[in-house]
């Protein structure tokens, strides 16, 4: 298919761009296969706006006489308005944008056409391979092995080709366990806590059904992670009620009789459309400047967004607590094990493992616990807060995870190597990107799409010093401790950097932030200078003493 067919009017002049808190600008609008480009040629301040079609969540059109107006709502939550003279032009442009922003085929997406303009230092597709992760693990324990059982994605379509499992369990047993778990997602290693050798595993729900089916291999597999005489915890991310109802559909949970060494704890983390609705309501509330205080607070409450944040953080703290404080191993799952499970396992690692609080470590965490673990990014991030379609697969699961990380970052502002911008960048790229990293729903799809060969990895771009410097936290001081966030409602805050980003002028806050960075930089400079001078003085004093001795 040619994009040109979709672009009936490639260019319109005398278009006026409106954005909140900026003066309206007049300029030329161009449509290309993947971008909407607006450029104003005003002498005093020429500017260009490039918008990926895939970033467009929804568009609305209005007409007053022959002047058409298009309101574009983006997945990064920004809203812009374009006034386009001429009814026909406006209709053409609107329908082109609509068509180009809702292309069905993944291979038509921008990442397949994007040619990087930067030098690739390190290919992001080759970073964070499971083997490297396993090597790290092997240096501290030999109780685990790499299994290639899923090499052709034949056992579990949503798992990567290689997974880490207990050494004592062979592939034959794994095959049986896979049959017993929803979507064949058998328990695999998620995290090894070096401090005490306890582990966190993740899986999907067991298929016990109404008649309490059991699977000896499954029991053996998870028991293999327990120390003799010790109990473990199963954190089910569903309420007991939901878990019980799942039995009717063939799912279920681990029953005490068959897993006597495990204590099951139910936490209630919401899923799918409940989260999507929550996001839609929250953004609606944030975008309405006219709300009086009562209405704002009740809308914020009704969105339930912060409740979700609290629930997820609470479950993650619980998992971390079991491992670090109780010295017990943990298995986490919900239904499919691709959403709330990953929120819990990845956040628990942020709490427990200082490595995950570095830039590199966090990237590795996103790759391991989200991309390779089979979080269906393409389904979940197809639409954002302005979607009108009632598809049931969209959900801001990853955004909620990032929000939780931001909450911890706010409470421990010196313990993270990255800053808030890094998290916002990941949010943007998960929804619309020139890079292939977040395309597809799992490794299986990615390998079929040949993404590593045909697209550029986000990490190739991010991990260059020019880019990294934007995402570094100047206050970072490595903190090897476990960090326990407060989950009291008074300690949680609305993530303004995402949700109020386009709704208020940020000049004064930005300038203050810059000033803060200047103070830190200046401090480092001064310290370096003092040290240099001290060395010089020490040298002079030695020379001076020698001179006296002569």
């Amino acid at each position, binding site marked *: 298919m040619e994009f040109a067919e979709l672009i009936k009017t490639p260019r319109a002049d005398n278009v006026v761009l409106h954005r909140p808190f900026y003066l309206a600008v007049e300029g030329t609008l161009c449509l290309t296969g993947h971008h909407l480009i607006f450029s104003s040629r005003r002498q005093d301040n020429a500017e260009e706006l490039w918008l990926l079609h895939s970033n467009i969540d929804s568009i609305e059109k209005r007409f007053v006489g022959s002047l058409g107006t298009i309101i574009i709502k983006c997945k990064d939550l920004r809203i812009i308005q374009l006034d386009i003279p001429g009814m026909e032009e406006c209709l053409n442009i609107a329908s082109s944008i609509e068509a180009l922003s809702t292309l069905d085929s993944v291979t038509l997406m921008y990442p397949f056409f994007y040619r990087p303009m930067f030098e690739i230092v390190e290919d992001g597709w080759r970073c964070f391979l499971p083997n490297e992760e396993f090597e790290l693990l092997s240096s501290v324990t030999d109780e685990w092995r790499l299994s290639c059982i899923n090499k052709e994605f034949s056992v579990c379509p949503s798992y990567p080709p290689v997974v880490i499992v207990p050494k004592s369990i062979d592939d034959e047993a794994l095959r049986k366990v896979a049959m017993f778990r929803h979507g064949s997602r058998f328990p695999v290693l998620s995290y090894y806590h070096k401090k005490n050798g306890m582990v966190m595993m993740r899986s999907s729900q067991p298929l016990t059904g109404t008649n309490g089916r059991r699977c000896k291999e499954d029991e053996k597999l998870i028991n293999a992670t327990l120390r003799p005489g010790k109990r473990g915890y199963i954190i089910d991310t569903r309420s007991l009620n939901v878990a019980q109802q799942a039995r009717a559909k063939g799912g279920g949970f681990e029953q005490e009789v068959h897993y006597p060494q495990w204590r099951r704890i139910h936490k209630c983390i919401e899923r799918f459309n409940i989260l999507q609705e929550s996001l839609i309501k929250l953004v609606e509330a944030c975008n309405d400047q006219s709300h009086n205080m009562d209405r704002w607070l009740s809308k914020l409450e009704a969105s339930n967004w912060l409740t979700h944040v609290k629930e997820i953080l609470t479950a993650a703290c619980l998992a971390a607590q079991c491992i670090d404080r109780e010295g017990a191993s943990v298995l986490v799952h919900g239904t499919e094990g691709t959403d709330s499970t990953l929120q819990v396992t990845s956040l628990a690692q942020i709490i427990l493992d200082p490595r995950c609080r570095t830039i590199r470590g966090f990237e590795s965490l996103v790759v391991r616990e989200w991309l390779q673990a089979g979080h269906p990014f393409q389904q979940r991030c197809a639409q954002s807060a302005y979607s009108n379609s009632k598809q049931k697969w969209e959900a801001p699961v990853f955004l909620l995870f990032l929000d939780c990380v931001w909450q911890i970052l706010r409470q421990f502002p010196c313990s993270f190597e990255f800053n808030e911008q890094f998290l916002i960048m990941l949010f943007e790229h998960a929804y619309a990107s020139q890079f292939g990293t977040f395309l597809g729903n799992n490794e299986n799809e990615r390998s079929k799409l040949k993404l590593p060969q045909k697209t550029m990895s986000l990490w190739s771009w991010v991990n260059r010093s020019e880019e990294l410097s934007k995402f570094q936290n100047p206050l970072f001081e490595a903190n090897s401790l476990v960090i326990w966030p407060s989950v009291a409602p*008074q300690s949680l805050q609305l993530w303004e950097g995402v949700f109020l980003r386009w709704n208020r002028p940020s000049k004064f806050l930005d300038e203050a932030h810059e000033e803060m960075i200047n103070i830190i930089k200046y401090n480092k400079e001064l310290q370096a200078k003092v040290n240099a001078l001290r060395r010089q*003085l020490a*040298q002079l004093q030695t020379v001076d003493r020698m001179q006296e001795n002569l």
Partner: protein
Amino acid sequence: MKHVEQVKLLDRFSTSNKSLMGTLYLTATHLLFIDSSQRETWILHHHIAAVEKLPLTTSGCPLVIQCKNFRIVHFVVPRERDCHDIYNSLLQLSRTAKYEELYAFSYNPKQNESEQVKGWQLIDLAEEYKRMGVPNANWQLSDANRDYKICETYPRELYVPRTASKPIIVGSSKFRSKGRFPVLSYYHKNKEAAICRCSQPLSGFSARCLEDEHMLQAISKANPSNRYMYVMDTRPKLNAMANRAAGKGYENEDNYSNIRFQFVGIENIHVMRSSLQKLLEVSGTKGLSVNDFLSGLENSGWLRHIKAVLDAAVFLVKAIAVESASVLVHCSDGWDRTSQVCSLGALLLDSYYRTIKGFMVLIEKDWISFGHKFSDRCCQLDGDPKEISPVFTQFLESVWNLTEQFPQAFEYNEAFLLQIHEHVHSCQFGNFLGNCQKEREELKLREKTYSLWPFLLDERKKYQNPLYNADFSPELTLLEPNTVSFNFKFWRNMYHQFDRSMHPRQCVFNLIMNMSEQNKQLEEDIKELEAVITIMMGYIPSCLFEDRAKSRDQISASDFY
């Protein structure tokens, strides 16, 4: 000194019932708890708002103490008898009947008499009016109230329009509640516009007063750049109308020439008191859910009130900055809402009030001198509980909201606001004692107590905002805050100041503050080092220096191997 051992201090929010064991001491001024690791918790008797003895439990008798600085401590005393004793003592000690028994009268900071006098002279309001540019061609100092004859709750020195003669002043004051006639609160030099303040007129349904009408006209005419003036009634319209039945009320636009009348709807002290009560009930709940917190926050109305106060100030500032119009502000008696709106308006207009010294001046002027009833509102003496209201706390919270929006515009930081809040209730210094200047003079506070301000200035390092930029940009002289609802946040550091588990574990602000302080020291160090090095370079022949330096490097290198 009475003391009880084996007392448990419970953590207010811990779910695992964490507690500290220690000894409780009762001194003449403080309740002191020293835990087993020798950490001390001091609670001033004056800070105690309520003491409650809960039913006996197996581990002892629980005693809950609520403080005016929002600290809540929960002790468990092993023996009921001890608990009862402490309870009774605290009840007595926290309720003072006479001013002379307040801590300020016994507090001795080891200052000599001349320091004490100088401390009180630190803030000079005459100086402040001079800074604003009065007296001038249109405004003058009036001696009408020199002996508190016209208005007992006003200060002696008042500034009024030159054209307002004594009979006009006297007439106007008779037509205003508690005699609080319109006087100057802030003068904007560039716009030649004024913020004036007063109490409600005794207009009832139809009464009028020519002198009062003249008074407003005089204020209007004192502003050459605008014909009309605004009259802001800071109350909700309904309340103001209800007051008419009691012979009070608001200005009738038909009787006053060239006024624009506006209600701004800030609620009264009783609504504010119960609002805070509700807020504290919510924030004090253990195991609170997000939705209960948000709906509790909404139901308390607290943030709505803060927004209303700030919205009123923004309205006032627009009238002055955009229209160059003078504004007369009043509420009922003109000492609560009027103080809030006038002082916040001035703070938005004039960057001086955003400095540490300027903020002290602002509080002295619009709150202390104009008779905000600190004693009644903060319950310094055992009195009518219906007079208590967090009006000044709301003012501080509004300022805090502004510091959040304009992080570089204020010389002072949050700790400064919290410290002032602490001392408004502590009764440790004389500034906030009593309800008006006349009362303070009668108490001879300047001889018998100390002023808070010099102590805060001595510690100014603690209260400085490291991001402050005095000449940030000229546009910042005027602050135009965004009062969209989402900008108002729950002030955790005020209402949970003592609940450490709620706060970020690492504080960026403190780090930057220390760094900024350290930078000054480092700059000094560099100067010194450079000076020493220059001197030494002067008397060591440079060739020798290089030779020896080389050989020294070799020596140290070989030492290493």
